[in-house]
C-alpha cells in the first residue's frame, strides 16, 4: 500500500488577520503560517495504514515558507520520503496548485504509481475549490471526501473508505484504486513527535526536490476586495461579575418560561 500525502501551509487563525495594503489579500506582516489541520490528519491516516498494511508513505508539498519543518516532521513521524516542488511562483490558488501537482507527479523519480493519494478534505483558504477532488479529476482517478477511515488489503485494487455524514452516521464505500481521498479525520488524532527527533531528522535526512512545470492555468476568479466580515447582528452583551451576569440570564430565561 503505497501512499502519497499532500500537505500545505495556511494562515494561522490564532493570530489576528489583517487586510494588506492592496485591499485584496492578507497583510503579510501579521501573517503566520501553520500546516493545514486536515492535512495533518491525512498524514496520520497514511502512517496508520502503513503500520497496518505495510508499504510506504511519501509526503509532498509545494514550496512555501516554513514548509521544510512540516516535511521533516513528517519524516520524523514515519514518512519514508519527503518531496518538495520548487520554482512555482506564489501565490497559488488551490486549483492552480492542483494543476501543477497533477502535471509534476509523473516526473517525481520513483514515485508513481501510488495506490492512494491522501490530503485534507478542505482547507481554510480553498476559495476556488478543494484540492482532493480537483486533483482526482485531473488525474482521472476516483475520489471520495469527508473521509474518517480507510482500509485496504494489499493487491485487492480497492479500498474500504468511510465517509462522515450528519449525526454521527458514516457511509461505507468501496473505492477502486488508485484514488484520491479527502481526509476529514484520521482514525486516531495526529501523533506527537519529540522536538529532538525532528531536529535530528533535519540533520540526517533530506527533502527531495522536483522543479515545477510551467504554469498554464490561472485561476479564473477575480478578487475585488478582502474585508473583515461585518457583523450581521450583534448579541446584547451582559456585563458584570459571573454572579451578576448569571442573575441577568436567569431573568431572561424566566421571562421566556424556560425556568
Amino acid at each position, binding site marked *: 500500500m503505497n501512499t502519497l500525502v499532500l500537505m500545505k501551509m495556511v494562515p494561522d487563525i490564532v493570530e489576528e488577520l489583517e487586510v494588506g495594503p492592496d485591499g485584496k489579500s492578507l497583510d503579510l506582516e501579521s501573517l503566520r503560517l501553520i500546516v493545514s489541520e486536515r492535512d495533518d490528519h491525512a498524514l496520520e491516516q497514511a502512517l496508520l495504514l502503513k503500520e497496518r498494511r505495510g508499504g510506504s508513505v511519501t509526503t509532498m508539498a509545494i514550496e512555501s515558507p516554513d514548509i521544510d519543518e512540516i516535511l521533516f516532521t513528517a519524516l520524523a513521524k514515519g514518512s519514508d520520503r519527503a518531496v518538495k516542488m520548487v520554482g512555482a511562483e506564489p501565490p497559488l490558488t488551490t486549483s492552480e496548485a492542483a494543476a501543477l501537482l497533477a502535471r509534476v507527479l509523473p516526473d517525481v523519480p520513483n514515485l508513481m504509481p501510488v495506490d492512494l493519494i491522501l490530503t485534507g478534505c478542505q482547507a481554510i483558504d480553498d476559495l476556488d475549490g478543494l484540492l482532493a477532488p480537483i486533483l482526482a479529476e485531473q488525474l482521472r482517478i*476516483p475520489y*471520495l471526501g469527508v473521509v474518517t477511515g480507510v482500509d485496504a488489503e494489499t493487491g485487492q485494487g480497492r479500498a474500504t473508505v468511510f465517509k462522515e455524514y450528519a449525526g454521527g452516521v458514516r*457511509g461505507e464505500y468501496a473505492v477502486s484504486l488508485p484514488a484520491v481521498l479527502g481526509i476529514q479525520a484520521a482514525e486516531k488524532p495526529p501523533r506527537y513527535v519529540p522536538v529532538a527527533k525532528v531536529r535530528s531528522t533535519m540533520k540526517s535526512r533530506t527533502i527531495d526536490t522536483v522543479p515545477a512545470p510551467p504554469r498554464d492555468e490561472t485561476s479564473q476568479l477575480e478578487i475585488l476586495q478582502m474585508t473583515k466580515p461585518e457583523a450581521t447582528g450583534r448579541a446584547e452583551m451582559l456585563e458584570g461579575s459571573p454572579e451578576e451576569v448569571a442573575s441577568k440570564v436567569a431573568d431572561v430565561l424566566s421571562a421566556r418560561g424556560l425556568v
Partner: protein
Amino acid sequence: MAGNVWVLAEHWRGRLSDLTFELLVLGRELAVGLESRLEAVLLGHGAKDLAGSLGAADSVLTVDHPSLAEPNPEAYCLALAALVEERKPRSLLVPLTNVSADVPSLLSARLRISLSNFCRDVRVVNGGLQARCLLYGGKMETTVAVPGSPAVLGILPGSRAGSEARVDRAPLIEEVEVALPSEGRVRFEKYIEPAAGDVDITQQHALVSVGRGIQTRDNIALAEELAEALGGVVSASRPVIDQGWLPLTRQVGKSGATVKPKLYLAAGISGAPEHVEGMKSADLIIAINTDPQAPIFTVAHYGIVGDVLDVLPALSEAVRARKGIHA
C-alpha cells in the same frame, strides 16, 4: 437571454436539506437579476416525490438512476456535467454540506469552469455575479467577480431564510435521461449508525454546548450541572468531540446534528461557520466566550465575555435558585 440559474437540490435519506431551500431563495433573486429562470436539479433514485416540494423553482430537472441512490460524488458529477453541457445554465448553486460540498470542485475541474467556494452571499452586479466568500475560519470575507458561464458556486448555510422557498406550488417537472455507468469506481455499500443508547440532542429543548473554552474533559461536569438544572443535556462542537470527551452523537454542526432547541447555550465556542450552521435556528442563543470578537456573538441573542469556568457554575446556581432547587 442569459442561461438559467440552477440549484442542486440536496437530499439525504429521504429528506431535502434545509440548505436547499435557502439556495432556492438566493437563486430566485439571482434569476430575477439576470432576467432568467430558476431551475432545481434533483439527482437520485426513486426520489421523484421530493420534486413536488421544489415549487419555488420554475422547473425541476430530475435524473433517476440507481447509481444516484446514495450520495456519490462521481455519479453526481457525471450526471451534472452531462446536464450542464447540454443545457448551459448561467450558474449552478451547490449546497455546502457533507453530502455535496465536493461536487463544485469535481464539476469545475471536469468542465473547466470557474468555482467560487464558501459563498455567504451572491448578488447580480452590472449583469454579472459577485460573491462574498468566507475564508480563514470565518475571519475574512473575499468579494469575487464570478467569471464565465456556466459558473459553479458553493453556498454556505445562512445566506437567506429558507422558509420563503417552502411553497405549496407544484413545479414543472422534467425527467431527463443521463447515461451513467452501472458500476462506478466509487460504490456505496451501507450506512453505519452511531452507537445506540445515547441521547438524541435534536429532541432536547435546552442544550448546554461546550467548545474549546471548556479546556478539559473534567470541566464538562460544569456544563452537565447547568444542563441538569435546565432540564436539558450537554452537546459540543467538533474540537471537544475530536478529543473523545463526548460521543459523536453530541456533536452540533456541519458534521454533527442540526438542532433547534428553545435554549442553546454556547459555552467556550468560537462560532466558526461549521458549528453555527448546526444551531443558528435555536430560539434563544446565549454565548459565553473570553474573546469579545468571537464570531459566535454575531449569532447569539445574548453574549457574555467571560470564562466559562466561572460563568457556568454561577449560572447553575442562579437557575437553581430561580427554580427553588438547592444543590
